[in-house]
């Protein structure tokens, strides 16, 4: 797949590019700030943009804002946002807007296979949310009666769902059979009052829409 990387630290940018190239992907553009990122995306229409949150000039949330811009004006380009720390600004909105978006802490890159897997999944229109981000969202300060009804196992499953994993992936991670996972998912969606569908991405969407609703 064809990738554009936006990262202001040159060494890190080259490292990421190397990782992706090692895995057989083509890095078609490298940007150091949000403005040139948008130009490169417009120019190359890549499958995926890997974007750092803090970039020049203000080192604030330029990356997430550029991500939102890309998602709305270039829907064919998926975005994987990398951050040094957990931040939920814009994230819920970006995830809820549909697939093709991921958000990971930068150190997840060190689990190379997981990282490449997430990149692949996002580029294919799926989602990838960092477990810590999911934990932050689910552990939202407001007590939610519906979430309290979930068993610990169901919460684990919900977290993995929210990260964007498939039933098979969840089964592998939790040492369960796929059928058991499917049962858990149905129970969760029922307890949360959401209709069950077979579509992985819509499940995540549903979960995050719900989370957004409880965040107010």
């Amino acid at each position, binding site marked *: 797949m064809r990738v554009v990387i936006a990262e202001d*630290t040159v*060494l*890190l940018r080259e*490292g*990421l590019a*190397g*990782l992706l190239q*090692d895995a057989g992907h083509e890095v078609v553009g490298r940007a150091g700030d949000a403005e040139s990122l948008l130009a490169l995306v417009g120019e190359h229409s890549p499958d995926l943009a890997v974007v750092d949150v*803090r970039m020049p000039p203000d*080192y*604030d*949330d330029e990356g997430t804002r550029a991500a939102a811009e890309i998602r709305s004006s270039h829907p064919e380009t998926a975005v994987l946002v990398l951050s*040094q*720390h*957990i*931040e*939920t*600004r814009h994230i819920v909105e970006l995830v809820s807007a549909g697939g093709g978006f991921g958000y990971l802490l*930068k*150190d997840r*890159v*060190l689990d*190379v296979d997981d990282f490449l897997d997430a990149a692949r999944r996002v580029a294919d229109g799926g989602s990838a949310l960092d477990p810590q981000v999911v*934990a*932050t969202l689910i*552990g*939202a*300060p407001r*007590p939610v009666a519906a979430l309290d009804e979930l068993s610990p196992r169901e919460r684990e499953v919900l977290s993995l769902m929210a990260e964007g994993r498939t039933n098979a992936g969840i089964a592998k991670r939790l040492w369960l059979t796929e059928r058991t996972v499917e049962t858990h998912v149905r129970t969760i969606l029922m307890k949360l009052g959401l209709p069950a569908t077979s579509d992985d991405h819509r499940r995540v969407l549903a979960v995050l829409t719900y989370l957004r609703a409880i965040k*107010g």
Partner: protein
Amino acid sequence: MSRPPRWIACALAAVTAATAVAGIVVSVVAASRGADGDVPPPAFAAFFVAALVPTAVGLFVALRRPGNRIAWILLVGPLSVIVVMTANEVAALALHHRPHSNLGAWAALVANQWPVLFLWPLALAFVFPDGRLPSPRWRPAAAIATAASAGIVTLLFLAPKLDGPYGKVPSPLPFDFPESVLLPLFWTCWAGLLASLFLGAMAMRARYRAGDAQQRRQVLWLAYGALLVPLWLGGGSLVALLGVSTDPIDGIGLVIFQAWPGVAVAIAVTRHGLYAIDRLFNRTLVYAALTALLAATYAVVALLVGLVVGGSAWSASLATLAAALAFRPLRDRVQNAVDRRFARARFEAVRLLRDFLDEVREGRAEPEDVGAAVALALDDRTAELFFRLPETAGYADRNGHVLDDLPDDGRRRSVIGRELGVLLHSPSVAPDLLRGVLDAAAVPVELARLRVELRLQLAEVESSRARIAQAGYAERRRIERDLHDGAQQRLVTLGIVLRRLQRSLPREAQLLNPALDAAVDEVAGAIADLRTIAAGVRPPRLDEGLAAALADLARGSAVPVDVAATADRAPPEVEAAAYFVACEALTNAVKHGSPTRVAVQTERENGVLRLLVIDDGVGGAHATSGTGLPGMADRVAAHGGTLAIDSPPGAGTRIAVELPCAS
């Protein structure tokens, strides 16, 4: 203008007094020999005494201000009048004795100059109080007055027959002008003189209308007199035309007429600050009265003791002691009495400020209100008081607003004490009143100045503490950014390099894999550590708001924490302050209180961010013990907020913080 020496003033006054005494003596002698003229001796004596009043005032002013023209008018005018009147008596006596006495003729010649009675008051009307005409437009009027006066005096000298006490007397001078020439000229000049008196009254009126309040008060009494003269002369002439004798009225009128200008000038000088010599007058009066009273005390005590004990040594010592003891209370009373009589305005004003100081002492007034008290005492609504700030050489008003320069709007500036403050006031405030008020205001002004200065310094300390707190916050933010974007970024890069190295190892070097995995784990651990450290310096989630940051805080806590935080945003440094206070409160609660639950609440209301941390632990926390709570209180105070701790033993702890939000 050259200043005539003072001795001339003394000499003139002495001559005037001597002539008056001589005149009275001659008048009494003449009366005893049946040679009474038109005026009986008591009326004459009254007239002389009345004429001595302006002489005394003139002498007083001339001694203090030798260049003052008014003083010389007051010295020369009455002298001329007294000489003329004395000459009248001499003529009466001499001609009674010998109808053709040469002395009598000469005296009659001088006595014939009766219009001098009007000349000096006329001069005064034109040039009082500054010795100049009210304006150049008055020059023609002054010229008419001068010409008429000179004409009348000259014509009276030229008259071949003089009006003596017992009928016409031939002039001793060898002139022989026909009356048909002299009389029309005389009446013309007389009309001119009457017109001049009227013009003089107008000049006084003009001066009164052009003056400010103080100047008006100074010319008021003389102006009354000036207006009365034409009325009196005109009325007298009318009555005379009707054929009624005006002598008694004329006599009383003359006495008043001669005394009035002196009294009017004396009032202006002593009570309305004319020539700024009222203070001297005041002191002279106090000194004289005090001396008299002490001498009387001494004399009475000495006499009484002498009568009872008989020893002169005893009586002298006791009388001295009594006089010494009486000095202080007598001095104050005499001063008060003199002030009350001769410096009424100042007396009232100073008393008003003393009352104000009493109110300050009793806590019923703020010292800062001294400006209003001074304005009231001076009866000057434009008066405004500013306190001097020695540190910056600037000024502050009663509310502590600092001015580098005082407004320059035509008001006069007067310094209070030794640069304690400055009073801006109307230029028409009497100098003596001002001096008294400023002296009396020095103590409250000093008090108020110190308080204003203290308030300003406190405000400066508070704002500098807030600036330091703000700088500290900015520094934390910078460090947090540096950790995330510097060190952490490099570690991630290092990890990636290691992973790429690992993945590019040839099959035979695969045994390095575990070591490389361990290395990457170390790197990941270091990144996690850095993230924790950075969050301790400043949680990045504060960017998303206090509620988000507190939620993270609660999630990381060992004790269940219920967060109910407002979604309203406050300025970043205020949110950070609230966050760190909540952190410390939570840490303290867990460390010392062993709570089962902690509640953290925030709300924003009326420009205040309120934070409440409540636990159900053992309580008994003290604001001053340990390092946690005082540190928290300092942090809150640096942002201008308040911290209240309620921690009864065994009943948990409740920490309430209020932080003002600038926006």
